[in-house]
């Protein structure tokens, strides 16, 4: 473990355009880490460890692409996109690992750390548990549409899907929730 790296990251405060990539990452880490963590908590149903892992993934991606990024003042959109994609990848991986066949092969029980989540975010988990019935892609598209208020085209741009596919994902998500007992009284 490198303590110098840690202290360096914590103490950087230099203008973005004049610093080397390491310092840039440090500044961006301090500026965006909580925002990334909060987004990850949403999809991790309040699980802090899960959200930390996603946050780490996002910043590792940043380290690997730092030399390609140009617009230093408007990286919020980049973080939003990468965080959603990291969450989606992780949700899909979890779904695959929790498939009955894979669990049987790996001799693993379904991994649910309810107690730890409950300690951290009581109530939060229950709310997000309701959309846990949705497959990862539908869940992410649904949240982006209804919580973040993004247009279908914007969601498609972030996730790399077409607008029509995003529309289908949202419709399927609504249908799945309806089947799970949530009625759509708006009809739309």
């Amino acid at each position, binding site marked *: 473990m490198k303590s110098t790296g840690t202290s360096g990251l914590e103490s950087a405060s230099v203008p973005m355009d004049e610093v080397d990539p390491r310092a840039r*990452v440090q500044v961006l880490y301090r500026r965006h880490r909580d925002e990334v963590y909060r987004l990850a*908590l949403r999809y991790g149903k309040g699980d802090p460890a899960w959200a930390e892992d996603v946050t780490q993934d996002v910043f590792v991606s940043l380290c690997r692409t730092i030399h390609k990024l140009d617009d230093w003042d408007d990286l919020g959109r980049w973080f939003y996109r990468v965080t959603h994609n990291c969450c989606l990848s992780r949700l899909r991986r979890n779904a695959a690992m929790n498939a009955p066949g894979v669990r049987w092969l790996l001799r693993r029980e379904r991994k649910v750390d309810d107690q730890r989540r409950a300690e951290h975010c009581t109530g939060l988990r229950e709310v997000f548990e309701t959309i846990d019935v949705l497959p990862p892609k539908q869940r992410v598209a649904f949240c982006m549409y209804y919580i973040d208020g993004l247009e279908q085209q914007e969601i498609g741009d972030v996730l790399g899907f077409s607008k029509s596919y995003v529309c289908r994902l949202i419709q399927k998500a609504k249908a799945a929730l309806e089947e799970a007992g949530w009625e759509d009284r708006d009809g739309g």
Partner: protein
Amino acid sequence: MAADQRELIARLIAADEALTEEKLPPSGVHRIANRISEELDGTREEKRLRWAPMVAFVAGAVLVLAFFGYTRGLSSPGSSEAPARVVSNAPQPRAVVTGPGCLQEDDDDELTLRGTCEVVTHSPVMRVQTTETAAIRLGERVVTLDRGTALFDVDPTKDDPVRIVTPAGEIVVVGTRFRVATKASTAEVDLYEGVLEIHDRAGRNVRMQAGEHFVLRTTLPVPADAVEIDEAVELEADAEQPAAPEGKASTRRGRPEDAKPPSASEIIEQVRSLRRRGQYTRAARTLERALKRQWPKRTADVLSYELGGIIARHLQDDQRACKHWSRHLERFDGTRYRKQIAASMRTLGCGA
């Protein structure tokens, strides 16, 4: 309990807003910062193991190729389906003999084949098919057909062509598909594709083109020009006529008495060849003569339909075509071409 989706969305938004107070815990901050430092220093294991996916991919590809190679090896001709698979002991080229019910005797350098056999050699690439008893010797780029009939399919080679040696002469293969029927003193050659050079015992050379028929003789003078395949068919169709006397015409028009008349598929192939060359009258004549022979009803139906098609479409002799179709319908009650014939008769205006 059923609830409104709007209510669910409102609760989700509220829960999400509640998260705005959340911050990355200090332990997480340090852990991720350390991970970032490692990433920037390039000390992570993944950096050094970037070749690992490539190695895995290559290993997978090798396994897949090995699997396909193994399965192809299993399904290659003669391994399991063809019990008659025998690797010839002939010195050069190495040959594989296959064929259902093929019996072969490998006597030093001569290979005697009985039944329907296929001999495949790899150097040169050549396929020899036999349907009757045939005796061949495989040498280095020289195949000797001592007796019997064989269909040769040879890959094109210009520098060092394959030579087929018969008792009557030698055939130089420039890359082609042809049939050789060897008798005691003759060798008949039917060339289907490509070009052949024939060298007779008298030292004369003839170049054959696709679709031509040639008879090589040991005792008689050999013609300098090749006989066209339709003429050979004429001779075969006139088998009842007395054989031409040994002499001037027999080499060109004569046909050995023990020669087998062409099969229906051979006739069809000859007719196709003639049609390709636009020789419709000859094609019709070939079919008319063939129809004089005794055929199974279905075969005769096919040949007669072919003839009718040529008369109607190519010769455009409406009256003759109508007459032919009427006779065809009478002769082949329940013909498989009823619809096509009816359509043709309508087009021709038969009976109008």
